């Protein structure tokens, strides 16, 4: 079979001998086929799981400290343990709704290695006693739909999915479900609403975890595509092999998409916890520096929702505690890089527009606040704003996230970092994300916003006529 490595078909694969847990097959052009999958250790993890039994398998996942890759970074094994005892049936809902600005990894995993994801779903369902799996894939990803549909058909035919898998008493249906275009549906309770055929609005909390009350009110595990894609490795090689990669608090690898003004943008599988932003942006194996010999101005470290970083933060490792202490978060594994030619307010506007547009409208601070942030910022960017508008932006934001907002430190501005997280008045993170994506640029680059506005007209006092 062919093994031509070209930029065109494998944006996730690069030379170098870094450990590859989830992208190990990306070097093959036919990585999505069952033939390639079986020839390269595919479904060995499933067999290992069936041999060790559900309890031992769940134990391995717990021991691996596999952290969720969907944004919140919650340990998968612990989450599975939140399912209440003796309540049946339990479901698995796979979150393949990837749409956070800057994020491009789950789609790649679904298109390039659908069987690995299917195997992950099987292992999770076996270990946590889940009796049906719904694979919710973002609507705007037809190639992923086609590849997963074909992979599922082949896996059913080969006896990996369906009744009595590989002759065991383990049975599972995996149902491919297409979304229809709504960012907020990626929030896990909205995902469940959407899967029930409703408008995709997040549910009020508590209950905090769908693991307790989820799809049709039943215990439901929601996991990200990348999280599940790690399970075949853990099942086949054991948790020790997994924890030997990365650091104690962040074991394994992570898929990171680096986009924007770098020489070689791409999706890279990096070693968790011990790769710095400097490595990622400037490293030879990764992005090889800023385009055209320009200077780095700022970067967004964890998807559009994350407060921005400056060159001051380059030496922070890709590790959630460090990123949090420095005033941001790693979120969905997406780094957006801006060089010194960037118009900062314009870029902030693209993000604010995104979150304002994607508000589901369930809570007032997000629905109204997001809209106002957008209107004011549009006014500023089109040259019709005043300096009072800049303060107004912060004031509107305060109704979404009261109190101090996290932001990075800056030597240039003499600013100390304010660590993550923030307080919020909304049900989900869409509202706060609208604010975060204007708060940190405005805090770190206020001069650029000021250059776009005129002074607000002074208040006029009109005296009453004497007499």
């Amino acid at each position, binding site marked *: 079979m062919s093994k031509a490595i070209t930029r065109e078909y494998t944006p996730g694969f690069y030379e170098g001998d870094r450990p590859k847990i989830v992208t190990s097959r990306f070097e093959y052009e036919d990585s999505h086929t069952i033939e390639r999958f079986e020839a390269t250790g595919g479904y060995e993890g499933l067999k290992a799981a069936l041999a060790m039994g559900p309890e031992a398998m769940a134990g391995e996942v717990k021991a691996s400290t596999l952290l969720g890759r969907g944004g919140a970074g919650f340990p998968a094994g612990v989450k599975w343990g939140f399912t209440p005892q003796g309540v049946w049936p339990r479901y698995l809902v796979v979150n393949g709704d990837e749409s956070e600005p800057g994020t491009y990894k789950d789609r790649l995993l679904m298109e390039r290695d659908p069987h690995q994801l299917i195997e992950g779903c099987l292992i999770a369902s076996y270990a946590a006693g889940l009796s049906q799996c719904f694979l919710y894939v973002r609507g705007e990803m*037809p190639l992923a739909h086609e590849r997963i549909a074909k992979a599922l058909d082949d896996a059913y035919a080969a006896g990996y999915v369906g009744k009595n898998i590989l002759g065991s008493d383990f049975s599972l249906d995996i149902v491919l479900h297409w979304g229809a275009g709504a960012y907020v549906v990626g929030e896990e309770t909205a995902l469940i609403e959407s899967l029930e055929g409703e408008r995709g609005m997040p549910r009020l909390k508590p209950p905090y975890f769908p693991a307790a009350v989820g799809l049709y009110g039943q215990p439901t595990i929601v996991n990200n595509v990348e999280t599940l894609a790690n399970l075949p490795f853990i099942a086949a090689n054991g948790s020790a092999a997994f924890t030997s990669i990365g650091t104690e608090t962040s074991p394994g690898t992570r898929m990171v998409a680096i986009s924007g003004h770098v020489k070689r943008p791409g999706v890279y599988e990096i070693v968790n916890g011990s790769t710095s932003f400097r490595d990622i942006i400037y490293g030879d194996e990764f992005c090889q520096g800023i385009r055209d010999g320009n200077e780095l101005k700022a970067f967004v470290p964890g998807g559009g929702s994350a407060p921005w970083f400056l060159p001051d933060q380059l030496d922070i490792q890709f590790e959630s505690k460090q990123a949090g202490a420095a005033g941001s978060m790693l979120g969905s594994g997406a780094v957006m890089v801006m060089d010194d030619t960037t118009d900062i307010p314009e870029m902030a506007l693209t993000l604010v527009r995104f979150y304002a547009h994607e508000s589901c409208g369930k809570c007032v601070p997000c629905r109204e606040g997001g809209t106002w942030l957008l209107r004011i910022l549009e006014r500023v960017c089109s040259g019709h704003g005043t300096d009072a508008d800049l303060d107004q932006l912060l004031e509107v934001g305060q109704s979404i996230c009261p109190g101090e907002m996290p932001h990075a430190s800056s030597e240039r501005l003499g600013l100390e970092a304010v660590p993550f997280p923030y307080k919020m008045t909304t049900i989900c993170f869409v509202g706060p994300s609208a604010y975060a994506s204007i708060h940190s640029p405005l805090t770190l680059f206020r001069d650029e916003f000021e250059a776009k506005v005129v002074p607000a007209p002074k208040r006029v006092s009109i005296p009453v006529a004497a007499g």
Partner: protein
Amino acid sequence: MSRLTDANLAIARDIIARYPRKKSALIPLLHLTQEQNGYVTDDAMRHLAELLDITPAEVIGTATFYEMFKFEEVGTYVINICQTMSCALLGAGALMHHAEEKLGIKAGSTTADGMFTIEAAECQAACTEAPTMQVNYRHQYRVTTEDFDQMIDDLRSGALSGDIPPHGTLGRNRQNIPADKFVGAPDPDDVTEGPAWIPVKVDNS
């Protein structure tokens, strides 16, 4: 006229059977009807309501939440040009401007011949390949203005009709669960026992 055809009705029944509760099939069936008619018609929504034992109001209530469902005719080719940050950093604004000039229409509208609709879109999960656009949701990477013009010419001449189906068709193959392998999707209210492979209650904690 725009109710599901017999062939699509058979597909719809298959899809409905995969879910423990019928209404879960609503979004997949909306896609199916959009694939048949190019957009979601009133008659189609009434038909889906019948199939799922819900009211037409519930159908439209759900359908209108989702951006991909169209309630009036759109172009044969819907061109979504990403305007979010990674693409904006690499010229998405100029690409949109060019597209509007080339087709002579503003974003959000359709050419008079019904061939093309342009939309300003949001992050398409292809950020490292910016600027990106989708034609009937098929990704196009690192799109230059020349690429755009070529694309329009090819679509007009039919050179790409094998690669890019008309609006409404998402995946060109659907999942097909063989009856003898299908475990089944009982309503959760009818389930009293744990799965067979969990012998006693398993302690995951």
